[in-house]
């Protein structure tokens, strides 16, 4: 028997309009996403965001940032330093959305801890008890800043569940490696995969956050889908995107930008207006969304989070340990 032409009968449907089985099986989530209003991203199975669990969430009122204007969603999703997807800031939006899938996505939690595990992101969200929204300042080492409404959960919760050993002093975060998909990873400009690190006290601080979304929607690929780190008192490059591994270790880990240019990017990378980058001043920052003649905003120590984190660095020379 010869196979039928796709449109031989009017009642026949081509495969392309049929809901894929995996979507059908997750149709309640699918319906909820459509209900939330991102028909566009949900219709294309390719760019379907992976970490959909927990939405909609609600704002944690202790992280509201009263009187601060949120950066527009358009700016946050179109102005990204994500070198895996290209060196220009507009490139990631384009190049990361050509069918790159974050579904399924497994995060490995390991190293020196009692409960190492490999876990799917949605299961992880359920395990930590859902997500909340926090408005955080985001300060890039390039002296620009945003205010971003992240959705996610405190890193401390994940660490608590993992029960790190007493010998664990640092946490290492590793991003994905996909040389086939990523134009940036095909060049050796950076030592891939991207790795970052925090001390254990930093990682368990109430501000350290694991984001799975922003503006109440699952993270877009260019923002580090499906799961990323957010450390608001440090320069943006510390907040590693698209994590595949979190490890508890004894020694200070090598971190990507520090390895590449240790005089410019320190391990701590705390936002500090009095410690300049060798090429530019960190005393002030350009607020994204301000327009051409908006001027600059003075940068605050620890990005305005000194109350929560200054105690972590007592007795430490911040000029040397930049």
């Amino acid at each position, binding site marked *: 028997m010869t196979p039928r032409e796709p449109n031989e009968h009017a009642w026949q449907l081509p495969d392309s309009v049929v809901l894929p089985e995996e979507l059908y099986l997750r149709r309640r989530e699918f319906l909820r996403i459509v209900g939330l209003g991102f028909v566009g991203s949900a219709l294309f199975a390719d760019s379907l965001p992976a970490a959909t669990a927990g939405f909609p969430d609600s704002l944690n009122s202790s992280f509201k940032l009263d009187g601060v204007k949120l950066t527009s969603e358009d*700016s946050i999703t179109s102005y990204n330093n994500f070198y895996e997807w290209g060196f220009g*800031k507009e490139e990631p939006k384009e190049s990361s959305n050509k069918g790159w899938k974050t579904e399924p996505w497994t995060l490995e939690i390991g190293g020196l801890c009692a409960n190492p595990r490999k876990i799917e992101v949605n299961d992880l969200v359920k395990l930590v008890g859902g997500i909340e929204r926090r408005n955080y300042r985001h300060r890039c080492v390039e002296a620009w800043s945003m205010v971003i409404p992240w959705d996610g959960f405190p890193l401390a919760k994940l660490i608590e569940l993992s029960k790190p050993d007493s010998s664990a002093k640092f946490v290492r975060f590793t991003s994905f490696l996909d040389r086939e998909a990523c134009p940036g990873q095909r060049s050796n400009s950076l030592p891939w995969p991207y790795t970052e690190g925090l001390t254990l006290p930093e990682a368990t601080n109430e501000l350290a956050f694991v984001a799975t979304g922003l503006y109440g929607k699952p993270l877009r690929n260019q923002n580090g889908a499906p799961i990323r780190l957010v450390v608001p008192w440090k320069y943006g490059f510390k907040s590693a995107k698209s994590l595949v591994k979190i490890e508890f270790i004894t020694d200070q880990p090598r971190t990507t930008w520090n390895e590449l240019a240790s005089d410019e990017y320190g391990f701590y990378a705390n936002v500090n207006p009095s410690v300049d980058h060798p*090429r530019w001043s960190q005393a*002030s920052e350009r607020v994204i969304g301000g327009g051409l003649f908006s*001027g600059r905003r003075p940068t605050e120590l620890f990005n305005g989070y000194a109350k929560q984190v200054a105690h972590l660095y007592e007795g430490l020379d911040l000029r040397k340990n930049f």
Partner: protein
Amino acid sequence: MKWPANIVAHRLFALTVLVGVGIWFLIVPAVSGNLGANPLEKLLHQSGEIAIWTLGAVLSLTPLRVLFPASALVVALNRHRRAIGITACIYGLLHFGFHILYEGGWDGLVRSLTKPFIWFGLAGLSILIVLTLTSNLWSIRSLGAKNWKRLHRFAYLAAALLIYHQSIAGKGHWHTARWLLFPLLGLQLARIVKTLYIDRFFQNWPTPGRKHSVPDRPINQRYYVWPRSEAGTISAEQRLRLRPVALCHLPWIVDRPE
């Protein structure tokens, strides 16, 4: 002059291209709202890119003229050397203007002036300003051709400073600079090799504007340039000197056919 050299040689062509680049990369995106989330940064980077590529363009003209003396297109392009050089300086000044705006005023500007990264840019721009101010007949006359030429060789220093400035502008990488640096170095190298060989073995070369050291012999007896076919009679001794001495000569010089 044939197409497209006749078009390229026209003043209006140069003006259109040099101003058009600014309109296309600065004004069109600004008017249509396509400058992105950080519009001033975009203008800053675009104007800097235009400036340095324009400088690269003008610096490639001399080597091109040495390498392809017979090309009408190269000759036509060489007519616009002054206009292109001045344009590079104007876009550079625009870039500096955007830098002042980006730093948000006096305090930011002063703070930025403490950074070597900015020194390189400013040093390069200062050279371009001096060269622009002396890019007129009066300056050539009052300095004397020799001194003027010496002064304008500082364009190479400016290019070196500015390419370095551009390369360290990116975050810890200099991959952007290689697209400009390596072609320019390659052209210069080819030019040097060619000039050295010509000077050593042929004394001179039919470059427009270059004085020939042996003016008594007609051009077609001194070398054989493809595709010109008419050749006078030359002695065996002279013929020996016409032999190609390096691979780089092959496209231009061939031994005189029997």
